[in-house]
């Protein structure tokens, strides 16, 4: 069974990036950072370093006080950002600042209360104006997403959804019908964070999803080494790296230049996995 692919308008940054990737046979390097970690300025410099390293898509985490789907690394990153005055308005300012020098697709990785509190339509419009291309709302399953889907469709924003190892086939189909832009397969049950090895049945799982949908598929959760990137890159349209990058910032709390340099080095090392 193969459902008709739901893509955004052909000229959207997300669709362009994935079709370019598919044409060239090279998977996308999707990098995650928490917006404003540890400060607005360092975060902007870190995003610039990732883009210069060749990141194909930026996932920016909106810092939330109660990030229950995130592991300790991302939780602490959010805490640092919030303590240093990051707000939802500043998250969009960061996106605007990136847009001054880059057309890289940007997806906000967030929690539903941050979208709901300012009003879904209002927030989607502001995000679109700032240059956001799509959203992944971690605690919003398709069952609760009707109104959010509609406002995102109105603004031509992608709505990315997660598929988990616990997701059965009929549900994969349902999620695929709800998602636009791409799908995100979490390579194992659990919260975000670095892992030493990847789930063994990864390629079987990806093959199963591929048999159900043609949407671009990125794989993440726990990717920390170039060989992980290479392994995932063989089966997916994109590889997501988060905690391994966030840790570079966390490891150098008082030396922003060193932190950004370490981040760049890590990004270079990982991107080599799909070069």
């Amino acid at each position: 069974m193969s459902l008709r692919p739901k893509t955004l308008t052909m000229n959207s940054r997300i669709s362009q990036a994935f079709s370019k990737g598919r044409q060239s046979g090279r998977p996308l390097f999707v990098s995650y950072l928490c917006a404003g970690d540890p400060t607005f300025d360092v975060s902007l410099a870190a995003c610039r370093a990732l883009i210069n390293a060749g990141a194909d898509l930026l996932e920016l985490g909106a810092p939330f006080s109660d990030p229950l789907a995130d592991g300790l690394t991302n939780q602490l990153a959010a805490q640092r950002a919030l303590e240093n005055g990051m707000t939802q308005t500043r998250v969009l300012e960061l996106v605007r600042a990136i847009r001054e020098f880059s057309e890289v697709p940007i997806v906000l990785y967030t929690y539903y209360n941050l979208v709901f509190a300012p009003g879904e339509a209002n927030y989607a419009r502001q995000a679109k104006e700032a240059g956001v291309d799509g959203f992944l709302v971690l605690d919003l399953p398709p069952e609760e997403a009707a109104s959010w889907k509609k406002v995102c469709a109105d603004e031509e924003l992608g709505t990315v959804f997660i598929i988990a190892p616990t997701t059965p086939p009929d549900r994969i189909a349902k999620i695929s019908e709800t998602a636009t832009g791409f799908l995100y397969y979490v390579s194992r049950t659990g919260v975000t964070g670095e892992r030493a090895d990847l789930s063994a049945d990864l390629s079987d799982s990806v093959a199963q999803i591929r048999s159900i949908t043609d949407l671009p598929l990125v794989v993440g959760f726990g990717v920390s080494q170039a060989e992980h990137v290479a392994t995932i890159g063989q089966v997916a349209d994109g590889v997501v790296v988060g905690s391994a990058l966030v840790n570079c910032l966390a490891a150098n709390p008082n030396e922003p230049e060193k932190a950004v340099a370490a981040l760049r080095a890590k990004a270079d090392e990982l991107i080599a996995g799909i070069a």
Partner: protein
Amino acid sequence: MSVVRSFLIAIRALGDFAEKMALTTPQQTATPIDRYSLPDAAGHFGQYGGMYVPETLMTPLFELTKAYEKAQADPKFREELAFMLKQYAGRPTELYFAERLTEHCGGAKIYLKREDGLHTGAHKINNCIGQAILAKRMGKKRIIAETGAGQHGVATAAVCAKFGFECVVYMGAVDMERQALNVFRMRLMGAEVRGVEAGQRTLKDAVNEAMRDWVTNCRDTHYILGSALGSHPYPMMVRDFHKVIGEEAKRQILEAEGRLPDEMIACVGGGSNCIGLFFEFLEDVDVRLVGVEAGGHGIEQGQHAARFEGGKVGVLQGSKTFILQNSDGQIELTHSVSAGLDYAAIGPEHAFYHDRKRIEYAYATDDDVMKAFQVLSRIEGIIPALESTHALAYALKRAPQMDKDQILVVNLSGRGDKDVQQAMKLLGVE
């Protein structure tokens, strides 16, 4: 300051604090709603409730819902539950006429629903027994739970010992300190208590950690959520396991007085003891129902946990409900003298009945609570849990306003043994 002296101060202060307490006037209640029609199949109580969780948990939650519905339809499950509630927990609990307290207040007859008499010391055991039997039927080997005051943790540890489950309880580091006795009780019964250092290190952060554990281990682990909170099916399931409180209370008050009470009062953190008592009475619109939230140091940002005072609608930890939050949607810090009420969200069914005006909500401050704590201890020889004392503090104010032939039922949801160390500190007794 001696206990006696502080008690006398408490009595004198009763008049003052009565004025300070938030109290709405009795009002016409809305048309009754079929209480069993909620939640809908997707877990919604009107606009509230639902399933706002990471994708990894959706399938385990669907499985849990199915297993729960199957169990409820199985006479064997209901038999085992009834047996355990009687033999292990000690149900039914008494509906006790507090004669001296009634005289002291000089108004309505005050009855106390004695959930404090249950095994492990609070109503929490009702839900833990139900969920443990369910987990056994589902073939789970490991149980996790969050706890605030420790009462739910203790009840979970007890049923895990009884049923032979591996047990991990998450507890905020701040709560571990103020409820050290309960930490030891859990460990004594074989539970592993994991301190949570994240966030403000109280109940909300313990829920986050428990959910993280469940996201990682959902295949062999059942999460016994301790209040009528979180994603569907928890608010429904926890309510169902506690509604025995109200069913007994109705039978008992009819036996004692030949009629229904005029007013019922319960404290509300997540709201499990409250919905447990009120559920059976929701359609009896002449019975006024009042939930009492934690007013902490007073209704100022970060100083309380009264969601209907300072909160607005949002989504936290699986459920859409009233939440204390800032304009960005970040969750506010909370404060209450009672760890069990120190939580930024309220159960979604409460939000629904709040909007319908079927249940009214008030709050009691820490000061009110510490006074009422001493009053009940002194007058009735019953030391109440600080959580339940919120309901009592409200009752002490409310009863004198009522006629002597009127009836007030207060849910004494737990006993205060766990709180004595903290009370000594707060009352300046060394």
